[in-house]
């Protein structure tokens, strides 16, 4: 016999709505309002999981987020969700759950052999063995260790659900809707503040349901509903099922709302979870406390449970966790729990308490109910492996801590344990306040606040209900004051309590019971860390709390040590002869409880990871068969692949058209910056290596900017549109960086310069018309404007109209052919482009993509990002002549440093394949036959104009090596290509083609 459903009761339960579910394939039934854990307990299920290391049989231990044992694989297929706490899983019809970390079955787990070998598997055993003859031994062993470790199974299937994110701003965020949180939220609301009240449970109320009281004559559920209505009526927002998991700088808190986890699957378009970034002026931490287990031999047997959990299962879900229950506690809470449970119809056999006496009123109440009270006694051992069968009660000397005689060895199927309460100080600790030790609680409470928060209730160490309510009210008023609402609100008063039991929950400082009979005494249940492991860590010198954690893995399991942390510190303190505060505690870090990664990612996943930038010609490119490629955030055409063509065929056709006739390419992605002001010329003069101050209006110039360290930053052109106005173009990749660079100099370095810069990148569409026929085509397309040699010489700028839209034209060439860049308003881009294409038809105009652009520029030895890789100088790429000697500019002084004039520096050269073999980008140059790298290949192409495989490369002492034969080595594919070093400008070296 074991747990069962009580005939009545259960504040959370709707007995009119039975729900069918399955655990390990076995059909079961519960009710709406159940958790998976309560439904399993009500069905008499004791064994629900296996522990991490020893695969020990385990049962439900808690009733909330602290659960260490009852972890299941929830759902299946792509929604399979390992390590889900049964205590936090709301039951829904058709729920499928499976036990985990067992093979072949939960009841018969072969891996439980680990428990037999456990004498070998002491803390840190793996550091001492598996070394054998070296790496091979470890790699062999590791495979088995990995398979044995881990808990649940995840799936490789993509998560089908969606997650959303939202921001919320409020005056007061109250974390936790227990008695303190509810009072704080009421008080802050009544003061006229915007309040958010978040609680990770489905229903607000916290321990109010377990205290067996009436408030202002109302049952807890009624009083709580009233309080929630009041808060909502005052404009407050209630967030149930919402875990506030992180406290970040500046009172920014992160929370995850489980929107649809209590359903079989989310409704269409409903997010599974929602992430809240909450910006609060003040925070009330009312996060409560978690009950501590006691450490004794066999304390992990299925059926051993936290006392508060045993009570919660009865009060909330109408479940008796056993047919024959014993309570073992070091505080009055144990007796109180026994009394309440007995009154709910649970059969309580005995209360065991190490103290010599307990509150007399409680003792009398136990007696009145026929419950045996054993004081000065402890539970020293348990019986039963897969289910608790009985316990050994022994005498206990509270002074010496020694075990006394056998008292009795009753049979029982549930043992409720309380070792006192551990305040949940996590969020305060995250916010930078180191927890401080409270001797009365034998635990840590929040330290002094550094961010704007107030802690109230059990999380601040107040355990009695009246005290929690009062502290909550006070915290709400403190928060109101902090938000500038000084008027004390008289509408809110404390509820009158009735039905309270006597006693206090301050614990007698008993953490563990001496070992008996060799059974393990667990401290961390999920990771199987025992009291002996703590001793071993001490013996081997892993004594600081961090070493203890890291050496034994204590507190590092999925439950984050919520129930083990304080016990471990106490045990280590005793072993070292120190006090607990001297041992100290680890710093708590986000998240308070494990949160779904998808919720933190939100919608910025899959295709929405980064925005897609498209030029106004995008649809045209796609319609014409362009293969699109990503260039940063942009999409650009790689080549327009015709029927039956390969990518190579296409780019050769396109590049050939440019060299022989005319082509057109979309350059809208180039960065464009409008530079205006009386000092605009001076400003550009300081940023570019070349001179710009004297650039005449109506002319453009190519320019290179350096970083402050003298390395090339970006290149582009600047067009002088007016004495006080330039249009600056940048590379596609650096558009944002160049703008920020300019803004930095204008605002921080040279605020005296009268210049303003504005990004106009997506203000203007751009297209380059290139090829011997470019002028003819452009002139034909122009409604007004003149691009004759006289009106628009090389680097000249003219204005005109195409398709009715105003255009700006600069005669610039990247391809080495006669070429013009045409800019127009973004929305007019398509019309201008199509007009140019139409005008070019008689001349055989051909659109070209990135591949052809690359070929053309390689033939000319022009540089792009592959050559400006953040390590190269102007001189390296052969542009030393652009470094003005007449003026200083950003980076000029730094180029005087020794490394910049080192003759060994690799410099830009051209390479021609000697035997027609293609050269691979990323090859390294070596002497024929091999040897060390002398440089590397940056860009390669088959040049239709030259009929050869060519490349650009950086080569040490490259300028002295033109004509030399080297090898382009690609050891990754065991390839070597013989190459002749050449000038990087392969085609039309005197530039006559663009000066026509």
């Amino acid at each position, binding site marked *: 016999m074991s747990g069962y459903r009580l005939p009545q009761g259960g504040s959370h339960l709707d007995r009119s709505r039975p729900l069918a579910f399955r655990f390990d394939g076995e059909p079961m039934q519960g009710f709406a309002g159940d958790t998976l854990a309560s439904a399993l307990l009500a069905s008499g299920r004791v064994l629900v999981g296996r522990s991490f290391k020893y695969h020990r049989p385990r049962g439900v231990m808690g009733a909330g987020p602290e659960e260490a044992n009852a972890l299941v694989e929830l759902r299946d297929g792509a929604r399979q969700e390992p390590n889900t706490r049964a205590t936090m899983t709301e039951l829904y019809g058709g729920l499928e759950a499976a036990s985990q970390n067992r093979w072949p079955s939960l009841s018969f787990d072969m891996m439980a052999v680990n428990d037999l070998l456990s004498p070998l598997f002491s803390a840190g055993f793996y550091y001492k063995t598996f070394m054998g003859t070296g790496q091979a031994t470890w790699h062999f062993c590791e495979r088995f260790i990995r398979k044995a470790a881990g808990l649940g199974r995840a799936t490789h299937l993509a998560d089908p659900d969606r997650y959303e994110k939202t921001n919320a701003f409020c005056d007061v965020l109250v974390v936790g809707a227990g008695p303190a949180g509810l009072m704080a939220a009421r008080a802050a609301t009544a003061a006229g503040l915007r309040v958010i009240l978040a609680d990770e449970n489905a229903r607000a109320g916290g321990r109010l349901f377990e205290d067996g009281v009436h408030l202002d004559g109302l049952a807890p559920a009624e009083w709580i509903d009233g309080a929630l209505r009041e808060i909502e009526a005052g404009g407050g927002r209630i967030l149930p099922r919402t875990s506030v998991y992180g406290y970040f700088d*500046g009172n920014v808190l992160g929370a995850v709302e489980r929107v649809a986890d209590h359903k079989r699957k989310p409704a269409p378009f409903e997010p599974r979870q929602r992430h809240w*970034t909450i910006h609060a002026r003040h925070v009330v931490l009312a996060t409560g406390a978690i009950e501590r287990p006691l450490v004794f031999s066999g304390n992990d047997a299925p059926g051993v449970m936290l006392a508060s959990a045993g009570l919660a299962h009865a009060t909330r879900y109408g479940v008796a966790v056993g047919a024959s229950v014993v309570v073992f506690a070091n505080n009055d809470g144990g007796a109180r729990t026994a009394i309440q449970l007995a009154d709910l119809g649970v059969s309580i056999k005995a209360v065991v308490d190490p103290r010599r006496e307990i509150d007399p009123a409680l003792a009398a109440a136990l007696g009145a109910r026929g419950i045996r009270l054993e004081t000065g006694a402890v539970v020293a051992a348990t019986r039963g492996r897969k289910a608790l069968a009985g316990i050994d009660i022994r005498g206990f000397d509270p002074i010496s801590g020694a075990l006394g005689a056998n008292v009795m060895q009753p049979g029982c199927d549930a043992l409720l344990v309380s070792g006192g309460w551990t305040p949940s100080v996590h969020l305060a600790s995250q916010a930078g306040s180191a927890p401080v030790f409270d001797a009365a609680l034998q635990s840590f409470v929040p330290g002094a606040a550094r961010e704007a928060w107030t802690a109230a209730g059990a999380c601040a160490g107040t355990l009695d209900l009246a005290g929690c309510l009062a502290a909550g009210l006070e915290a709400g008023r403190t928060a109101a004051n902090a938000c500038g609402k000084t008027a004390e609100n008289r509408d809110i008063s404390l509820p009158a309590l009735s039905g309270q039991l006597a006693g206090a929950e301050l614990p007698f400082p008993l953490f563990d019971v001496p070992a008996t009979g060799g059974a393990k005494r667990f401290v961390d249940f999920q990771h199987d860390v025992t009291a002996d492991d703590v001793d071993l860590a001490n013996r081997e010198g892993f004594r600081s709390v961090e070493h203890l954690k890291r050496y034994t893995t204590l507190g590092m399991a999925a439950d984050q040590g919520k129930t083990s942390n304080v016990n471990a510190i106490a045990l280590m303190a005793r072993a070292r002869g120190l006090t607990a505060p001297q041992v100290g505690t680890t710093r708590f870090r986000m998240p308070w409880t494990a949160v779904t990664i998808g919720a933190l990612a939100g919608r910025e996943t899959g295709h929405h990871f980064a925005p897609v930038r498209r030029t106004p010609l995008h649809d045209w490119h796609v319609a014409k068969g362009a293969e699109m490629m990503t260039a940063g955030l942009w999409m650009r055409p790689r080549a327009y692949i015709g029927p039956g063509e390969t990518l190579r065929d296409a780019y050769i056709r396109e590049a050939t058209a440019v060299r022989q006739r005319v082509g057109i390419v979309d350059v809208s992605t180039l960065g464009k910056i409008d530079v205006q002001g009386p000092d605009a010329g001076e400003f550009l003069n300081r940023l570019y290596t070349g001179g710009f101050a004297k650039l005449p209006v109506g002319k453009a110039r190519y320019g290179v900017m350096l970083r402050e360290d003298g390395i090339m930053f970006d290149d582009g052109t600047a067009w002088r549109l007016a004495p006080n106005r330039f249009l600056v173009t940048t590379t596609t990749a650096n558009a944002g960086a160049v703008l920020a660079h300019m803004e*930095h100099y*204008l605002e921080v370095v040279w605020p005296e310069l009268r210049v303003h810069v504005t990004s106009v990148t997506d203000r203007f569409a751009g297209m380059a018309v290139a090829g011997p026929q470019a002028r003819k085509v452009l002139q034909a397309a122009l409604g007004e404007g003149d691009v004759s040699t006289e009106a628009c010489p090389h680097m000249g700028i003219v204005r005109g109209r195409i398709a009715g839209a105003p255009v700006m034209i600069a005669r610039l060439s990247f391809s080495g052919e006669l070429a013009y860049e045409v800019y127009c308003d973004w929305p007019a881009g398509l019309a201008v482009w199509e007009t140019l294409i139409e005008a070019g038809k008689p001349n055989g105009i051909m659109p070209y993509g990135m591949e052809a652009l690359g070929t053309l520029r390689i033939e000319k030895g022009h540089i792009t990002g592959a050559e400006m890789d953040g390590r190269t100088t102007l001189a390296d790429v052969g542009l030393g002549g652009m470094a003005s000697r007449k003026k*200083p500019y950003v980076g000029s002084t*730094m180029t005087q440093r020794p490394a910049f004039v080192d003759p060994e520096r690799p410099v830009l050269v051209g390479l021609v394949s000697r035997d027609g073999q293609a050269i691979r980008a990323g090859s390294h140059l070596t002497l024929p036959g091999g040897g060390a790298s002398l440089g590397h290949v940056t860009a390669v192409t088959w040049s239709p104009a030259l009929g050869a495989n060519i490349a650009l490369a950086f080569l040490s002492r490259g300028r002295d090596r033109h004509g030399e034969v080297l090898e382009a080595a690609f050891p990754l594919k065991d390839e070597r290509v013989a190459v002749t070093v050449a000038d990087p400008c392969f085609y039309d070296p005197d530039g006559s083609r663009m000066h026509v």
Partner: protein
Amino acid sequence: MRIHCPCCGPRGVAEFSYGGDGTVRRPDLSVTDTDAHVAYVFERENPRGRHVELWHHIGGCRHWLLVTRDTLTHEITRVEMAGRFAGEAARMPGAGA
């Protein structure tokens, strides 16, 4: 972390781009001594505690701000405009009306 931009008000840190130590001064362009530039470009005090630093409000007004922030606690005690609006400071919470 939130930065109280004097121009835009309190905004999340994700709107800003960090510009490093705000106390280093670029040598005048006319200075051709390499050491002065090396110091400006590479050398930092990197204090543990109060740090005056530059932030660029790229997702907002695009002004550069001088922010006084504690590198140990991340607490921000002052935000002012850099450059031509130097001295324009944000009203910080707790600073009174």
